[in-house]
């Protein structure tokens, strides 16, 4: 896996007076789990769309290793974006380019506890199950960067916790570079190697903080909460971003 450098000089929407993103530099280490935390509407989804190549109207560059190219992407959107007329398995297969073996899908279905539903249509799944299908699809393509845009935002707390746990377990089995957008600081601490706090209008990096909590301690809510208190006490500048 290669490191990825993102440098966006500016991104301005045609109808907006001032840039949404200005002089933003991100450096993603290979297989690192990064959480982007910032106020809603600050341009996080725009940033992910630029990295995914869905938005090419910006000044800047993206470097994968030494090359100017768009990295191979697995994107978990805010809503699952499954094709309702294809089964769970077909939805995953369609994202593959034919080089991957079908065993990958079977393994991922087991990991996400969806083997029994693989031939169901998405309308018959619960929201939590649909999210898990979207996670499988993103992992199945073996991406250079996994983009996740608040993927648990509309789930109830127990379901979100369950899916988050499954995601972390899967990520530890199959390490990938992850950019995870959230505005929930507890969720960010539970998931990330590194937190990047972003400001609004224009979006810029306010601070970067490494999360020192060991991976096997991440389901310990006390440890998460005490780190959060400590973080807010030591970095007053991030309070206004939450």
């Amino acid at each position, binding site marked *: 896996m290669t490191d990825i450098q993102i440098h966006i000089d500016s991104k301005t929407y045609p109808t907006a007076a001032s840039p949404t993103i200005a002089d933003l530099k991100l450096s993603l280490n290979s297989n690192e789990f990064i959480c982007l935390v910032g106020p809603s509407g600050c341009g996080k989804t725009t940033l992910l769309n630029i990295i995914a190549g869905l938005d090419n109207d910006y000044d800047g560059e993206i470097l994968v290793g030494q090359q100017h190219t768009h990295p191979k992407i697995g994107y978990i959107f805010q809503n699952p*974006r499954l094709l309702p007329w294809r089964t769970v398995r077909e939805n995953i297969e369609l994202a593959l380019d034919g080089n991957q073996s079908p065993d990958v899908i079977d393994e991922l279905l087991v990991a996400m506890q969806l083997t029994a539903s693989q031939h169901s249509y998405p309308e018959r799944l619960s929201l939590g199950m649909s999210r898990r299908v979207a996670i499988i699809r993103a992992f199945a393509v073996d991406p250079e960067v996994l983009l996740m845009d608040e993927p648990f935002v509309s789930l109830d707390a127990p379901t979100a916790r369950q899916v988050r746990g499954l995601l972390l377990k899967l990520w530890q089995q199959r390490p990938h570079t992850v950019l995870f957008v959230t505005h929930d600081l507890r969720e960010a601490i539970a998931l990330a190697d590194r937190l990047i706090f972003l400001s609004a209008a224009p979006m810029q990096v306010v601070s970067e903080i490494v999360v020192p909590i060991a991976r096997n301690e991440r389901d310990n809510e006390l440890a998460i909460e005490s780190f959060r208190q400590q973080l807010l006490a030591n970095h007053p500048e991030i309070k206004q971003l939450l």
Partner: protein
Amino acid sequence: MNLKKLLPTLSLLAFLAIWQGLAVYLNSNTLPTPEVVARVFWQGCVSGQLPFHLGVTLLRLVVSFTIAMLLGCAIGIVLGRNKKLDAFFDNWLVIFLNVPALVTIILCYVWFGLVESAAILAVVINKLPNVIVTIREGTRTLDQDLLDMARCYRFGRRKTLVHVIWPQLHPFVMGATRSGLALIWKIILVVELLGRSNGMGYQLHLFFQLFDVASILAYTIAFVAVIQLIELMVLKPLDKKALRWRR
């Protein structure tokens, strides 16, 4: 027995009864009884005349319908996805939508002669704008989120068309198909009446000159029955298969 299931049959029987009553009451050559029409229908089948002319018309229907649907879907998708092309062609679409069918038929015959290809062309020109407009509206409603997903997972053109775009266009394609069958066969009859020496339209013209209402009704019933069969045997099963994912 379920009354609801009997209702279609009952309404058909009521229609036949009223028809019979009127025909007996008027006792006129211009309104034969259902029994006379049935006999004419049977004679036409036995002599082979009715199946032959019906077959010729159906063949024209299939050919012109296929051309109009294929071209119309392709152009409709392109116009729905490309604003500049759409702006360029929009006026022409409205114009062709409103040119009377009779005018295009006459012009095609005058310019290209009384030949089969001119007949087919006239039908296609009449139907094409309808298909384009329907599919264009469908393409405008495509879900951008799913298209973005397909782009980011590098589906490519073919996969995107088959798995993302086409299923969303299904209701529009079925709408264009149903209205298309109804429209095309009405136009074909006029095309045949004006410039062909076989087919339903030609026969109907002949019966009109002879005031042979029984034959006119027998041919009409045969054609309507065939269209009903297409609906039941082809379109309904297609709908069922394409929408099996719905709860």
